[in-house]
């Protein structure tokens, strides 16, 4: 952007802002494709094991805390709204509103992680952890019901790996949003360069969307468990 004579936000190797924004948008969509495939590998593995061990998975799922997950879902969906409002503010050149919406989004994301922390703490407290410290009560309960406790642990492996990787994505997202706040504060997001906000928001929507798959796969799978057994 240094040698440019056109616009302070045009990078030197692009012909014009249109080309620059087209590149940025195409780039983020391609990155999102890689993210979907990254999660796709593990979703595929989950599908295979869910088909093989349906009863164990439903049983294990019924031990997860659906209240925390529901609260978190609300947080994430709301944050998707606020980051979209941030794009609108950036487009209109309303810097104060842009910063405000970005901060609300970051706060909601942080709240998600805090709730997630409480949830993990509760899980550990209940020994809902695969491996040698796996809860004896749940193991006994599973055996009583004719289920294989090993496969109950397998579900929990998925639970920790999937929510863990998703959590890392949330933390990265918080970092990106705070970087946007900093950029907006410095005044480097003028209306003609709002695509930076758009790029981050697309990433953020993906993180939301993945959660909307994790929620039913992990938490709601065991929702009707008591009714059938």
């Amino acid at each position, binding site marked *: *952007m240094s040698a440019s004579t056109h616009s302070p936000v045009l990078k030197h190797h692009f*012909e014009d802002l249109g080309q620059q924004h087209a590149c940025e948008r195409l*780039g983020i969509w*391609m990155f999102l494709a890689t993210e979907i495939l990254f999660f796709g590998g593990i979703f595929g*593995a989950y599908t295979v094991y869910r088909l093989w061990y349906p009863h164990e998975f439903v049983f294990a799922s019924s031990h997860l805390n659906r209240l925390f997950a529901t609260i978190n879902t609300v947080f994430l969906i709301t944050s998707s709204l606020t980051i979209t409002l941030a794009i609108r503010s950036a487009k209109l050149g309303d810097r104060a509103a842009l910063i405000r919406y970005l901060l609300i989004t970051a706060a909601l994301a942080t709240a998600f992680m805090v709730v997630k922390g409480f949830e993990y703490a509760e899980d550990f407290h209940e020994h809902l952890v695969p491996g040698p410290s796996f809860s004896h009560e749940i193991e006994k309960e599973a055996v009583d019901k004719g289920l294989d406790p090993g496969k109950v642990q397998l579900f929990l492996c*998925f639970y920790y790996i999937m929510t863990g990787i998703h959590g890392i994505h949330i933390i990265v997202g918080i970092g990106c949003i705070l970087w946007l706040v900093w950029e907006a504060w410095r005044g480097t997001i003028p209306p003609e360069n709002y695509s930076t906000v758009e790029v981050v928001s697309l990433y953020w929507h993906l993180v939301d969307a993945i959660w909307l798959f994790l929620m039913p796969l992990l938490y709601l799978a065991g929702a009707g468990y008591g009714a059938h057994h």
Partner: protein
Amino acid sequence: MSIAVTHRGPAAAPVPPEPAPAPVNYLNVSHTIWSWLFTVDHKRIGLLYLGSISVFFVIGGIFAALVRTNLLMPNGAFLSEDAYNRAFTAHGVMMLFFFLIPAVPGVMGNFFIPLMIGAKDLAFPKLNIASWYVFMIGATFSGWAVLVGGIDTGWTLYPPYSSRASQSNVLPGVMGVFISGFSSIMTGLNIMVTVHKMRAPGMTWGRLPLFVWSLYATSLIQLLATPVVAVTLVLLMVERAAGIGIFDPSIGGDPILFQHLFWFYSHPAVYIMILPGMGVVSEVLTCFSRKNIFGYHAVAWSSMGIAVVGFLLWAHHMFVAGISFYAALLFSLLSMLVAVPSAIKVFNWTATLYRGSITFHAPMLLSLGFLVLFTVGGLTGLFLATLGTDIHLHDTYFVVAHFHFVMVGGMVIAYMAAVHFWWPKMTGRMYSDWWSRVASVIMIVGFFLTFVPQFIMGYHGMPRRYPNYPQEFQILNVMSTAGSSVLGLGYLLPGIYLPLSLFFGKKVGANPWSATGLEWTTPSPPTVHNFEVTPIVVCGPYEYAIGVDQMGRGLPEPPGAQDDPSHRDGSTGPSGPMKKETEVVG
């Protein structure tokens, strides 16, 4: 973008390139070490890749030499069985993940894609330098794992051995591979966006050089396959480090699942390695036979065909691993399907050569070598795709010979062709013609000596990965090891004459090979921003028949004219002072 300012440096003067007396190019624009380490210039990043992968190639080669030397004796010449396992794993990991996969996309792709499509840079220059750093961090992890004792699992890292039983440095090794995968994704993404959005006016899809098409197809695979192996390696690492995992059979997990996920990447990865080589060969064969490529669209679309079909045949690695009969049948059929686009390419190259005016410089010799070796490698692949013969040949030296024919005979030879073809453009200097021809022939002969005996051994049942073998295989193993030292000599020679050419080589003009691509219309080495003015493309990439480059300008004297001594000092391009030819060696 403060980096861009400092890297242009004080030498660039207030006035941009136009009337500078000594031409400013990307090499001499700034000389500090920081100007290289913080560069966002795609050409410098290409050279950073060139330097680093050359080092990894040497390391991988040393381990290959250890393995081959050990196999001189039926009971192992000098390595313990454990050390042997670690040596062949180190060879595989180094060569595959840190040489073959980044070689052409990292070096030639970074350097030449923007030049070939008339762009000033790749779409995301900072992402580009980040990809090199990520690559180096990954290489550091894996290299460290190798140095402090190595990995003994084989490069395929199959659990449960790798996740539980192995006592070696699986974790840092896998970590390195995982990290370097991101570098591969970044490079692929950058190339795809650049090709889509940054082509010069007139550079339609139908006028893209075939090298660009092949790297576009490669990038597609990098983008779509690498994330899957990334998550697979995460699962493996979590299983090994934290004891929670999904491949562990003791809690109901399935190691075969790892193989599915792993080969879903690693089979397409074969095409990440070979497709760029095919692109290089398309450029070189048409240039040195002075003919338009035969069937441009067929060659371009067969790259995309290979990229797509390459995703559908991973499970042919698992014919004996316990997949169902019908699945094996299907994957056998799909595996044979990839022969179709590959054969389209080979036939088109052959048709391009037909009645061409051929000159045998090093890039051409190597490309012709590629044509033969890749064809043999491809045809022996059919033996392995066929269900019945694969059960006999599975995990024998036949497989080893097959994939070395494709990857070494194909990819490494094509990489060498690329280095020789574009070296004058990258450095502005020409290497010794005679020595480069000698090295090319030695490489190809050494290659045959090394790997043809392995086909015979494998056909007679010598298993791969074993340090010991029956006495009857010794003569073939000795032949193979002897061949590998000839091959090593072939690789050593460019390691000598190419660096020497930097100091003693003849300076070349913009277009020493009289080729048609846009990259040959800028000075050698290219200026900082590639083109003084954005080029306007008016014709296809291979108009050798009417003798014009892509901007519609006439081509200089083709290199074959140099055989006539009266043409020796003739200028071969518009820029760069011509000196009397200086032979590098001899």
